[in-house]
C-alpha cells in the first residue's frame, strides 16, 4: 500500500504518456505473438529501455548516498569494448561476460575509492572516468568499431526468453533483485542513512567507507550489464557512441522517479518507471510520426511538464488554492514546511 502510494505519480505519468501516444498512434498497445516471441510497441519499449533502466538502478543507489555517477555512459563503452575484444579474441561467451562485468566493477571501485577514501566530490570524481573512459575504450578497440559474429553473445541483445526480449528480462530481473537486496537486508536503510548524514551514520558505527565504494561498484555493475546488451545488440563495440549521454538519461529517470538529488530516501522501482517514461516518450514521438528533428524538443517539453506536475511545491499550492476556493477567502493561507 505504502509502496503503491510512493509510486502513484510515476504510474499515473506513465499511463498518461501511453494514453497520449495512443491518441496519435492507435495501435500502440497492440501486443501479438509471433514465432514464439511477443511483439508490439510496448514490448519494443521494454527492450529499448534496457540500458537506461539498468543505469538508473545503479544511479538511484549512488544518488541516495548524495553522490552522482557521470561515468556510467563511458563505462558502457568500456565494458562493451572489453566484451567485444574477448569474443573477437575467441575467449568464449562466459569469459567475455565475466571480463565485461569485471571491467564495470573495476570502474566502480575506482570511482568509489576517489569519492569515499580520497574524498573528491562525486561529480568531479566520476567526471574523470567520464572523460578518460572513451579513450580507454578506444584503446581496447584500437580505434575501430570492433565487430563479432558470435550468436551466443548476440543473444543478450536480440534473443528471447519466455517470449520476452532478453534485454527486458535482464533489466527487470536486475531491478527486482537489487530492490529486494536493498529492502530485505538492511542495505537500503544504511545507504539512506549515509546519504542523509554521513558523519552521524559513521559515529553510529555504519561502515560508510565500504558502503560508498560498494554503491559505486553496483553502479559499475549495472553499467557493465548495459554495456553487454548494447554491444550484443549491434554485434560490435563502438567506443565513440556506445552509451553516449546515457548517464544524463539515467539521472533524469532517477529524478522523474521522484528521488531527491540531495540523497536519502530512494525507490528503485520509481526510477525504473522513470526510465520507462523516458523510453515511451522517445518511442512514442517516433511512432506518432513527427519529423525526427522535433524529437528532442518534444521530449524536453514533456519532461518539463512531468517534473513541474510532480513538484511538491505545486502540490502544496494546489492544495491551498483548492481549499481557498472551497472555503472562500481564508483569514490566512500558510506556507508551512518551509524547510
Amino acid at each position: 500500500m505504502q509502496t503503491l502510494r510512493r509510486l502513484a505519480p510515476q504510474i499515473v505519468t506513465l499511463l498518461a504518456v501511453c494514453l497520449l501516444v495512443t491518441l496519435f498512434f492507435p495501435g500502440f498497445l497492440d501486443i501479438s505473438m509471433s514465432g514464439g516471441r511477443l511483439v508490439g510497441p510496448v514490448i519494443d519499449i521494454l527492450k529499448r529501455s534496457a540500458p537506461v533502466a539498468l543505469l538508473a538502478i545503479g544511479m538511484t543507489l549512488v544518488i541516495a548516498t548524495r553522490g552522482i555517477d557521470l561515468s556510467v555512459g563511458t563505462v558502457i563503452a568500456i565494458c562493451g569494448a572489453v566484451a567485444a575484444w574477448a569474443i573477437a579474441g575467441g575467449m568464449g561467451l562466459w569469459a567475455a561476460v565475466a571480463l565485461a562485468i569485471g571491467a564495470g566493477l573495476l570502474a566502480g571501485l575506482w570511482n568509489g575509492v576517489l569519492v569515499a577514501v580520497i574524498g573528491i566530490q562525486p561529480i568531479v570524481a566520476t567526471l574523470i572516468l567520464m572523460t578518460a573512459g572513451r579513450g580507454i575504450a578506444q584503446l581496447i578497440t584500437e580505434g575501430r568499431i570492433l565487430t563479432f559474429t558470435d550468436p551466443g553473445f548476440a543473444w543478450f541483445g536480440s534473443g528471447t526468453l519466455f517470449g520476452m526480449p532478453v534485454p527486458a528480462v535482464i533489466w527487470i530481473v536486475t531491478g527486482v533483485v537489487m530492490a529486494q537486496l536493498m529492502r530485505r537486508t538492511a542495505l537500503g536503510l544504511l545507504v539512506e542513512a549515509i546519504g542523509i548524514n554521513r558523519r552521524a551514520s559513521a559515529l553510529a558505527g555504519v561502515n560508510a567507507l565500504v558502503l560508498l565504494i560498494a554503491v559505486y561498484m553496483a553502479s559499475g555493475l549495472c553499467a557493465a550489464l548495459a554495456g553487454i546488451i548494447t554491444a550484443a545488440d549491434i554485434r560490435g563495440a563502438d567506443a565513440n557512441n556506445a552509451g553516449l549521454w546515457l548517464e544524463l538519461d539515467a539521472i533524469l529517470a532517477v529524478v522523474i522517479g521522484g528521488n531527491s538529488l540531495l540523497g536519502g530516501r530512494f525507490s528503485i522501482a520509481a526510477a525504473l518507471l522513470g526510465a520507462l517514461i523516458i523510453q515511451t516518450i522517445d518511442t512514442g514521438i517516433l511512432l506518432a510520426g513527427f519529423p525526427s528533428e522535433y524529437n528532442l524538443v518534444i521530449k524536453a517539453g514533456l519532461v518539463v511538464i512531468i517534473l513541474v506536475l510532480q513538484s511538491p511545491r505545486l502540490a502544496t499550492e494546489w492544495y491551498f488554492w483548492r481549499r481557498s476556493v472551497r472555503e472562500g477567502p481564508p483569514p490566512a493561507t500558510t506556507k508551512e514546511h518551509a524547510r
Partner: protein
Amino acid sequence: MLLTIRSLTKTFPGTLALDDVRFDLAAGEVHALLGENGAGKSTLIKCLTGAYRPDAGEITLDGAVVAPRSTGEAQELGIGTVYQEVNLLPNLTVAQNLCFGREPRRFGLVSSRGMKAMAEGMLDGYGLDIDVSRDLGTYSVAIQQIVAIARAVALSGKVLILDEPTASLDAREVEMLFDVVRGLRAQGLGIVFVSHFLDQVFDLSDRVTVLRNGRHIVTEDIAALDRVRLIEHMLGHALEDEVEARNAGHVEARRPPMLHFEGMARRGVIEGFDLEVGQGEVVGLAGLLGSGRTESAELLFGLRAATAGTARDQEGPLTLDSPRAAIRAGFGFAPEDRKTDGIVADLSVRENIALALQARRGWARPIPRAEQQRLAEMYIERLDIRTSDAEKAVGDLSGGNQQKVVLARWLAMNPRFLILDEPTRGIDVGAHAEILRLIHQLTDEGMSVLLISSELDELIAVSDRVIVVRDRRHVAELTGAGISTETIVHAIAQHARKDGEAA
C-alpha cells in the same frame, strides 16, 4: 503598547501549535518569551516574522493591524529577528553583510567607500571596534551576533526578536551582547528575548511571558517572580525531580574498575592523559569551550585516532582506532552537535533508534521490522520521547526529543561505557531533569558514563568524579565531597585568563 497580539491560533496537521495566545510588547522593554521545547515559542515568532501565517488572531503594531506574509515584509513593518545560528554570510565582509541588498551606489556601481562608511555608521554605538572590510567569518560568534543585531535594527527598527542569541557564547561574550541589548532598550526598541538560560532571563528582562503546550500561561514583571515559580509555570508541576537529582550522588563508594586508559594523546589536540573508569561510575569532564574536553572524548571513541596511549579492560587491551572499533569494545558516544553528528534527520524515529544496532549486526542481518517497532516503542515510552508515532522523521522533533532519540540509539546497544557530550545543551528544563535522572538510572544498572558539560550544576549533580581540563591537558581530579562549584571553578581559573582569550 508597541506590539499587541490577541487570540493568535495556529494549527499544524495533528497539533495545535498556538491556542488563543496573547502577548504585549512595550517600547523600551525586554520581554522574555519562555517555555519548554514545543511550547509554541518558535511558532509565535514565526507568525510575527511572516514565516507562518496564523489561522486566527490579530497582530497590532503601532496601532495598526499587520499580517506579514514574509520575513522581508515583516522587516519593512519594523520587526527584525536574530537567530541562534547567525543568519549572515560569513564569506562576505562585515560591511557587505550590513549593506546587503541596499548597497550605496556610485554611477550605478557599488561604492566600496560608501559601503564602508555606511557600515561604520550602522555599527556606531554598539561599542565594537572592528574592521568592517574583513570577512565576517573571521570574527567571533558574539561579534557576528552583534553585527546581525545591527543589521536587523537598521532594517526594522521597532521590534527586535532575539531567538536564543546566547546559546553559543561564553560568559564574557554574553555580557557584551547584553550591553548592546540594554543600549537598544534605552533607545526605545521593543525586544523579545527567547532563551533557555534562566539566569540570563533574570539578568536582562523586564517582563516574562510563559507559554506551555501552545497556551499563554502567565505574563508578569520579572521582579514579581522567583526562579522556582518561573520553572513551575514552565513545567506545570513543581521541580521535585531536579531537586532530587541534586541531592543524590557523591556517595563515596568504591566502584570495581572496568576501563583503564593510559597516556592517551594526540599531538596538537590533547596531551597525554590517564583515565580509569569504574563500573557504574559517572566521570565528569569540566573545562571551558576549546579546553580539550570534546577532544578527549573523541580520542576515547576512536573518532580521532590517538597517536599514543593504551586502553584496556579487565580482559585485555582494547583497540580504539575508529568508532566501529570503539563500539565493538562496548562504547557509545552521543556527540555535542546532535544536528550534524547525532541524528539522521530524514529517517524515522524507529530507524534512528535501530541504526547503531543494525550497523553492528551488519547489513546482511536486518533487524525484523516488528523488533525495530518494539525497540522504538519501548524507548519512546521509557525516555518519554514526544512524537506522534515512531514513523515520524526525527528532524521534525524538537531538540530535546532529538537528543533522547540519540540516547535511545545507544541504550538499545546496551553499551558498558557511554560518552555524553553536552547532553542537555539547548533543551528545556523538563527534558533536562529527565536526562539527568536517566543517567542515574543507567549507572545504577552498571553502565559507566563520561559526562562532558559546561553546566557545573549538572556535573556536580551526577558525577562521582570530576576531571578538569584546561589548555588541552587534564589538570585536576576532584572526588566525593571535593566536587563543588568553587573547586571546579578554581581549577579552571588558574589559567582561565589565557583560556578566555583563546576561546
